[in-house]
């Protein structure tokens, strides 16, 4: 009975947060604010549903499963990485360097800065084209 109450509360909270996360995707005004609705709120909602499942199966059927914990950890690890990648791609596509303030004095955004060293692809291309410098 106690497990049932806990699972029900977790399911309702998870559904609410998942709905809020996806509604924010539609409602919020510009891409950078839209980015943070699904990456935070929807992940919290799915995490709540997975924890509910983790509690429900031992309480009801007596089988302990570790899959949910695995999925929760995987989602919590990958959601910030996803958000960061999409933010970087959006900065790269939609904004020029002059529109943004510097992240720190004397530093540039990593996605706009020149690479520190020549990459393997650049070196190969330079070798193929003779010794022309990269534009």
């Amino acid at each position, binding site marked *: 009975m106690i497990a*049932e*109450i806990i*699972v*029900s*509360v977790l*399911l*309702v909270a*998870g*559904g*609410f947060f*998942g*709905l809020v*996360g*996806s*509604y924010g*995707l*539609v409602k919020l005004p510009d*891409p950078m604010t*839209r*980015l943070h609705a*699904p990456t935070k709120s*929807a*992940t919290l*909602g*799915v995490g709540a*549903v*997975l924890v*509910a*499942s983790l509690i*429900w*199966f031992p309480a*009801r*059927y007596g*089988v302990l*499963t570790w*899959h*949910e914990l*695995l*999925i929760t950890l*995987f*989602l919590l690890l*990958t*959601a910030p*990485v*996803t958000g960061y*990648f*999409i933010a*970087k*791609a*959006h900065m*790269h*596509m*939609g904004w020029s360097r002059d529109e943004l303030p510097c992240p720190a004095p004397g530093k540039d955004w990593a*996605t706009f800065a020149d690479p520190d060293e020549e*990459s*393997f*692809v650049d070196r190969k291309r330079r070798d193929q084209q003779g010794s022309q410098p990269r534009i």
Partner: protein
Amino acid sequence: MIAYALIFAYGCFGMALLFCLYRVVFAPGLSDRVLALDTMSINVIALLTLFGIDKGTTMYFEASLLFAMVGFISTVAYAKFVLRGDIIE
């Protein structure tokens, strides 16, 4: 009681999927579209888990684990393509 909570959660995540579908179709930019697809995969994971609780079977966890991995990898592949012009250099 858990049946009502399950119905509520089904409704919430179904509506969340519809919002994401709207954003996929009417997106102002490419990054919004990819973000909406990523959120769709997250919502589908929740729906699969809810279905597993509903039916009392643990068989759907492998499917949701696969969804988690494929969603993450596809988003990273997109971002890598935009940032570097190639997926595997």
